[in-house]
């Protein structure tokens, strides 16, 4: 009998403690900030490429002062947005997180960052996307650029001398260059058929080329959704497809274009087996491992035969992600600590060093004393300094736009549909887009 009573008691204790654990989370959090204790803030980092280096930076920051303790929340295999929704639902939102297209749904929860130091140092245009009613809600993480990434040594050999990117202004120039590379014995071009590259990045080229003015481009996107744009008759769109045809024709994986693996492409380019690849500066980390001393640079994607046309001399440059601070579930102290941490990251010497040299980020700020020195970053900087940049219109796409357009373009690439079919599918997607 005694034994039964004992086991019953244990049972009850167990159950009560399980139930208590369910409801206990909030209280503990509320008490943490009283007294002289450290403010604890959490950061959700969805970018796998930098997670290890980010952890080191956080360790460094935690050691450098005794007011704030930063901890990292791993995404645990979920995508960033899903992780954020679960954390919000459990009343446990991260204090700092980053995102791009989710900004629209999340903005009513975010802290106003307008009064922060870095705002005045941010490059022009980089804050447009996160500015609402004159208030800034996001801090640009970095700058990324994409275009035709070329291996200079291959192109030098093909043109017989030092290759000058300024010589390629039209589709005919591009075709002539492709022919020369081919004549020198290697493949001219490589297309990685991954959906984000085709659907988000490559389509950006025509969207951004549609109008020189930001407001007109946004209006063009709206017109596309409302159905008042006829893509089949759209000059820029057709010119852009002509360029795509050219790329398709000279693609090194022409026989089975969809079987090409992304991981092979940097190897092909670095080994000099292809001359050019449609990709962005992030790929340089892999290229560097194979060919640390090689010279690489960007060429714009020309979409017409008139060198003067808008966009033919520009590469697409934009902000891939923005850091944001939660204001709906974080205490004012936590928000302040979060802002301080973000500020430290882009203004202190240590933070800048991590940013540029460890993360390989191209900073979006004018105050950086640490400057990237690799050839690809140099190439991007030469375009940004000359203001030869195209906007990332893909930031304004609805989330399903790029997979939908990429699917149609992959079909086209594989020869499963013709130009009329591709145009029709893209048009059909936009006509039902919200």
């Amino acid at each position, binding site marked *: 009998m005694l034994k039964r009573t004992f*086991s*019953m008691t244990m*049972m009850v204790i167990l*159950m009560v403690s399980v139930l208590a654990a369910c409801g206990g989370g909030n209280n503990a959090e509320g008490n943490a900030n009283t007294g002289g204790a450290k403010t604890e803030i959490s950061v959700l980092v969805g970018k796998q490429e930098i997670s290890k280096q980010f952890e080191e930076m956080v360790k460094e920051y935690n050691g450098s002062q005794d007011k704030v303790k930063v901890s990292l929340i791993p995404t645990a295999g979920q*995508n960033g*947005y*899903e992780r*954020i*929704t679960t954390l*919000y*639902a459990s009343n446990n939102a991260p204090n700092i997180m980053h995102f791009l297209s*989710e900004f629209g*749904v*999340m903005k*009513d*929860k975010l802290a106003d960052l307008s009064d922060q130091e870095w705002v005045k140092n941010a490059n022009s245009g980089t804050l447009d996307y996160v500015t609402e009613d004159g208030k800034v809600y996001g801090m640009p993480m970095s700058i990324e650029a994409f275009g035709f990434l070329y291996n200079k040594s291959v192109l030098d050999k093909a043109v017989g001398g030092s290759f000058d990117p300024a010589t390629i202004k039209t589709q005919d120039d591009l075709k002539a260059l492709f022919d020369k590379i081919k004549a020198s014995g290697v493949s001219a071009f490589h297309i990685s*058929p991954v*959906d984000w590259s085709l659907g988000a990045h490559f389509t950006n080229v025509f969207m951004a080329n549609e109008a020189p003015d930001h407001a007109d481009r946004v209006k063009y996107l709206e017109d596309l959704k409302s159905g008042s744009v006829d893509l089949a008759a759209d000059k820029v769109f057709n010119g852009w497809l002509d360029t795509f045809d050219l790329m398709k024709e000279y693609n090194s994986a022409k*026989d*089975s*274009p*969809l*079987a*090409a*693996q992304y991981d092979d492409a940097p190897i092909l380019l670095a080994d000099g087996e292809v001359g050019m690849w449609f990709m962005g500066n992030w790929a340089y980390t892999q290229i560097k491992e194979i060919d640390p001393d090689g010279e690489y640079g960007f060429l714009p994607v020309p979409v017409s035969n008139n060198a003067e046309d808008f966009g033919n001399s520009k590469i697409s440059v934009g902000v891939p992600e923005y850091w944001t601070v939660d204001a709906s579930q974080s205490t004012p102290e936590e928000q302040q600590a979060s802002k301080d941490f973000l500020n430290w990251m882009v203004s202190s010497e240590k933070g800048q060093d991590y940013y540029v040299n460890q993360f390989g980020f191209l900073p979006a700020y004018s105050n950086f004393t640490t400057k990237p020195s690799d050839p690809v970053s140099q190439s991007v900087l030469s375009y940004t300094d000359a203001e030869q940049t195209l906007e990332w219109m893909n930031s304004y796409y*609805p*989330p*399903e736009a790029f*997979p939908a357009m*990429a*699917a*149609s373009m*992959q*079909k086209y690439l*594989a020869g*499963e549909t013709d130009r009329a079919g591709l145009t029709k599918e893209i048009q059909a997607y936009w006509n039902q887009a919200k």
Partner: protein
Amino acid sequence: MYNEKTFSSKLKVFMIFGFVPLFAFITVIVIPFLIGIFMTFTNWNGSSSSFDFMGLSNYTAAFSDPVFWTSMWTTLKYVLITLVLTNVVAFALALLVTSGLKGQNFFRAGFFTPNLIGGIILGFVWQFIFSRVMTYAGTQLDWGFLSASWLGDPDKALWALIVVGVWQNAGYMMLIYVAGLGGISDSLLEAASLDGAKFWRQLFSVKIPLMVPAFTISLFLTLQRSFMVYDTNLSLTKGGPFRSTELIAMHVYNEAFVYQNFGPGQAKAFILFAVVAFIAIMQVSMMKKVEVEA
């Protein structure tokens, strides 16, 4: 054996044995499921604090989405083929490892191993096989059907998924069949062979009819696993090329979390639940009728 008389002692027994699993079942299955159904009638986006009632508009959006039906159709094809192949292979393997073969326990363990590997890792391993090993072999031996990666061609990519699915599940189903074969009494088989029945006759007239319960379970498990496959789909093809191998579980996930259409995504998840539940109940109740008593 408990033999409680009073209500309080009955309650005590229930609290010890029944309450914890019931509590767990209700909190992690029943309540989320009901909330999930409730959410299909709202436009909640997964994070905002307010939402409106939308009536059945999420369901109309789900039903009128052609991609959903393409994905459902692809999944049905996938399920049907894996269902047949997995069970044929598993049954053949079960016969093989119970035939008195030398080292049969080693083979049992070997065939079962794919089940122990997580789907994501398994997908990456097979992606390597399909896009490197097989293309290398194909170009070296000049076999046309292997020279380009299967994962780049929509029809072959589905077959690649099927191959991996069968390879992964056959070992598990094999164990169920091994148990089923072990449950057949030796005296029946002995009687059959005394009557002059050879291997095939014994297989079709004695073993298979007596193993219907094992088939019921295996078919049900394969059906459910194939319908819900997500991990190998993600790591092997990621739904590509051009979303042609986006199986239904992945489609639902993408709709809700990647394309941020929470409402229609949730409605699709519920439609999927209804379809799978209907097919599974049909299958089990039909099989139950075929079962015989030894």
